[in-house]
Structures are given as C-alpha cells and as structure tokens.
C-alpha cells in the first residue's frame, strides 16, 4: 500500500514539470540495463528481465521474466512509459499489445561486434532523453576499447582457447565463429580453436581432442551448475587436451563476458589478465 502511494507520488511529481524524459522505464536486456544505469537513469527503471543482473541494484527491481517470452499485462502492471527492448525481445503479439496500450517501445539494434556497443549506448541515450551524456559515454567507450585491444594485441603469446557454453545431452556446446565468445577471445589476444564451427554447436569428443585447446573458458554460473570447472576439466575429452592436462580454465560472469554491455573493455582486460598474468601486467592491463 505504502509502496503504491510512493509510486503514485513519484509518478505525479515527475509528471508535474512537462518532461519529455520517460519516468518509468522497463528494460528487457541485461546489456541495455547496464547502459541505462551507467547513464544515471537507474532510479527510473521499474522493471528488468532475467538477464539484467548488473549492477546489484537490479536485484531490487521487479522481474518481467525471459526476454523472448514477455507477458504484456505483466509489463503493463508496472505502468511504464518506455520499454527498452533487446533486438530479439518478444513475442511479437506482446509487443503489439504494449503499443496498443500506449507504451513507447524502443527496440535496440543488435551488436554483432564489440565496436557496435557504442551504437547501443547512443540508442539508449536517445530513448531516455540523455543523448548528450550518451554521446560522451559512447566516445569514452570506443576509446577504452581501442586502448585495451591495443594492449592485448601486444601480448607475446596467442593462447588457444575453447569456450564451453554448456553441456547439452552430454556433449559440450562450443562457441564457434560469429558468437560473442569468439569476439571476446580474439579481443583478449587469444585464438578460438573452434572458429571453423558456426554459432554455438555441440562438438564431438574427437574434434575437441584434435582442436587441442590450451585453456577452457566458461561462464561462472554454468561451471557451478556442472559441479565446478574441475568437473568439466576432468571430462574424458577435455582431460586429454593441453587445457585438461595443465588444469587451465578461466571462468567469468556470463553477462560481463558475453553481454556486450558497457563493461566489455573491462571484460577483455580481465580475460587477458587471467590468460597471461605476467605479460598482461607488463603491457599495462
């Protein structure tokens, strides 16, 4: 009840001066949520989807569920005036129903490379009425990314990496070319041993052996779900690879590593440091 009152109060207060800025924002997409918070509009966010786990404040915000399976009435119950949606948000019917109820929907462009992230930042800025701030942030982002990748390019070794997304039906699902994992591996100065496969695909045991990865990269959450990264390293097809024999694996937060959000330069640096600590330090990472 009190929450409702406060809610009504904030709505009427922000509505008093005629603002073009949306005051109640729902975000469907973890990367977009990060951008909204980084632009300082976090307190205007009233709902986020499952992938929005950063910054920690998002845990306090209402959960609208899975980004491709949004409930139109659920979103409407948050009384948003703007929905910032990832390019693949859906279903289409829910989007149409939201528009019919007078909610503005801003569908963000898809980022296929890390450089596209600056576009997303500008897009979110324009949608929430912080275009100038977003312009600065996008410029800073591009600069950061260029600085980090310039350093990772100087690293002496190019470790051979394999990204394991999950283990589906007993076969590891490997990140091939065209995935954000592939891009991150490259940016961090590594070589993706599974570059000849396209997208996330299961890879046979023998193919993994012949790919001979030196380091396994995984999302922290998935590694824990499989009983820890040691469990993955001890699988027969991985135990016999250089990565398995030297017990070398890197785990990182999934949204940080693959989210293509504003933290991407930091993620690249973190991955590079985890791969070659000394050389990375020498390169100033």
């Amino acid at each position, binding site marked *: 009840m009190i929450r409702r009152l406060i809610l009504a109060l904030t709505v009427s207060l922000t509505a008093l001066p005629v603002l073009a800025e949306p005051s109640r924002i729902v975000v469907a997409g973890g990367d977009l949520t990060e951008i909204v918070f980084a632009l300082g509009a976090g307190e205007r966010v009233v709902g986020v989807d499952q992938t929005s786990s950063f910054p920690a404040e998002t845990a306090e915000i209402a959960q609208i569920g899975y980004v491709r*399976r949004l409930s139109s009435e659920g979103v409407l119950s948050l009384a948003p005036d703007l929905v910032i949606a990832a390019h693949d948000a859906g279903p289409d019917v829910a989007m149409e129903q939201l528009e019919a109820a007078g909610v503005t929907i801003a569908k963000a462009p898809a980022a296929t490379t890390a450089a596209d992230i600056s576009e997303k930042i500008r897009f979110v800025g324009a949608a929430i009425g912080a275009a100038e701030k977003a312009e600065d942030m996008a410029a800073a982002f591009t600069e950061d990314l260029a600085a980090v990748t310039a350093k990772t390019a100087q690293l002496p070794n190019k470790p051979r990496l394999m990204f394991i*997304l999950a283990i589906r039906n007993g076969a590891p699902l490997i990140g091939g070319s065209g995935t954000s994992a592939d891009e991150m591996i490259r940016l961090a100065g590594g070589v993706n041993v599974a570059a000849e496969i396209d997208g*996330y695909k299961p890879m046979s045991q023998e193919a993994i052996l012949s790919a001979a990865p030196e380091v396994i990269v995984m999302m922290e959450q998935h590694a824990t779900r499989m009983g820890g990264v040691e469990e993955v390293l001890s699988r027969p097809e991985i135990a016999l690879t250089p990565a398995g024999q030297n017990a070398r694996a890197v785990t990182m937060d999934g949204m940080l590593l693959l989210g293509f959000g504003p933290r991407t330069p930091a993620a690249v640096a973190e991955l590079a440091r985890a791969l070659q600590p000394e050389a990375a330090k020498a390169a100033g990472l």
Partner: protein
Amino acid sequence: MEAALAHNAGWRLPLLGLMALMAGGLALAGLALGPVEIPPGRVIATLMGQGTPVETAIIWQIRLPRILLGVAVGTALALSGASLQGLLRNPLADPGLIGVTGGASLGAVAVIVLGGLVAGSLPAWLLPWLLPLAAFLGAGIVITFVFALARSAGETSVATLILAGVAVNAIAGAAIGAMVYISTDDQLRDLTFWTMGALGGSGWSLVAAASLLTFATAPVLFRQSRALDLFQLGERAAFHAGLDVEGVKRQIAIATALAVGAVTAAAGPIGFIGLVAPHLARLALGPRHVVLLPASVLLGICLVLAADLAVRLAVPPAEPPIGLATSLIGGPFFLWLLIRTRGRTHA
C-alpha cells in the same frame, strides 16, 4: 466404471449447472484479475466502451482473446479426449496418444528452426501465420496417416490405431530431436518455451481462427454420444446394433484433428487437459456420453482457465508457461489414477 458419486440421474443436471457456473465464474475472474489491477466497475465500463486507452487495451486486446482461447483450448482438448477415450475404449487415450499433438509440435518446431530459410521468399502477410499453419498441417497429416495405416479391408483397427499413434509420436519426437540438435541457442529457447504452451502469445486473428474451428467441430463430436455409448459394448456389438462404425470413427478423427490442431497451433501443446477432464467428468457424472461430453468440456474449460489464472497471478510481472500449471495438476492426478487402477486389478 468409477466410484459412483452421482449416478443417480437426479443429480446430473444440477451438477452440470454447477460446472457451467464454475466455468462462467472463472471466465469472469479471468476478465477481472491480472497483474494490472482493474476494479470490477472499471472492467464493466471498459466493456461498455468507456475505459481509458490502457484499460481498453488490457481488457480488449489482452484478457478477452486469452479467455476465448482458454475456452477453445479447454473445449477442444477435453471433448477430443473424451471422444477418443470412448472410441478407443482406452482410459489413457488423449489427443497426444494418437500423435495429433506430436504432429502439431513437429510442424511448429520445424518453422521455428527452419522458418528463417524460407521466410525471405514468402509474402510478408503470411509470416505470422507460418507457425500456426505448420502446426495445423502437422496435426492433419499425422491423423490422416495414422488412420490410413490402421485401415484395411474397409475396417479401422483400434489396436493398430493406438500402436501407429505411438510409433508416429516416436518418429515426431526423433524429428524434433534432430531440429533441437541443429537449432541455434535462440531457437532452442523459443521452441522450449513453445512446447510448454501459452494462452497469451496469440493475437485476435489467431484466437478467432482457432475458436471458430473448435466451435464448428464441437457439434460433430457432441452428436456421437449415443454411438460412443454403443462402442463401450465392443465394436462388433455396436455394429450389430446398426451403427455405422466406420463413419463414426472417421467423423471423430477428422473433428479431433481439426480442433486439436487449431488450438495447439494457437496455444502450443497443453498437456493433461484431454486426459484429466474426461476422467473427472466420469467420476462425477458416470460414463454415459450424453452427459460425459458436456461435463468434460465444462471441466476442461475450468481447468484451462484456472491454470491460466494461476500462471498470470503467480509471479507478476513475469509469467510462467501454462503447461507447467496443467502438468502440475495433471501429473499427480495421472499417478493417482494409475495407483487406483492397480489397486483394483490386484484386489
């Protein structure tokens, strides 16, 4: 067959009336309750065309099509389930058993995974209809195939029908597995969610199409109640009683495929309604199909609408798939049924 709660004829009409009231009440609840709180007075005003734009959108574009689809799904699944259980003289029969749902799922999954390959060469107006059309075609093809297989020398063998259904289910399952294998991560998630069903993912046009097909085929099935009673005596006895046995089988097959194909296309495969609703109805009102069929329909509608309300109100603003709710009701009930049947045969 089941313990007689009310085989006394005097109870049947009031009980049917009670079920109708329950279904009506749930439909009204579905209109009035949701994550967005709209007081009953405003709901009525909105229905009269005096709502705010947001209220109008919620009632007319979101809740009404949902309820209509829920009624169609409950009707189609429960009526088909009751008819098939009677026709096949098998208490475990439901539209899933003879492969209709499997065929529909295969059609839908194929569109989710492979649709991108053909999408470019199709007119834009067709794209939103691609998935429901494929699901509908899948159901139609499977039931035609199964019945053709079970038919020899002018007679349809019920045993072959069930076995063919089981085999087709296995084949459809394998084909879906192959699709899952070649799917991308996004597609995998889409099809996982599709197979759990939802009433909320369809707009008016699809809901209207599914409801029309359901309500057009329902009278065909309702008309078979005496024939289904005769079937309980055995097919031969039914034939000697002057029944056009083959004609009844054909009509039920076609009507079932149309109705189940249509609602599965719109709402995804929703489990257990076709199995559970007829059993509940039989438990309450006895095995005579003239009351069993309408009672199954009413209970089917109640179950679907109740499950939909449950998922809508469980964890707003998010919404779990309705298949979870129906399976949570249906699964335990199915087990209970098994244990009961076992107890009886051992007694």
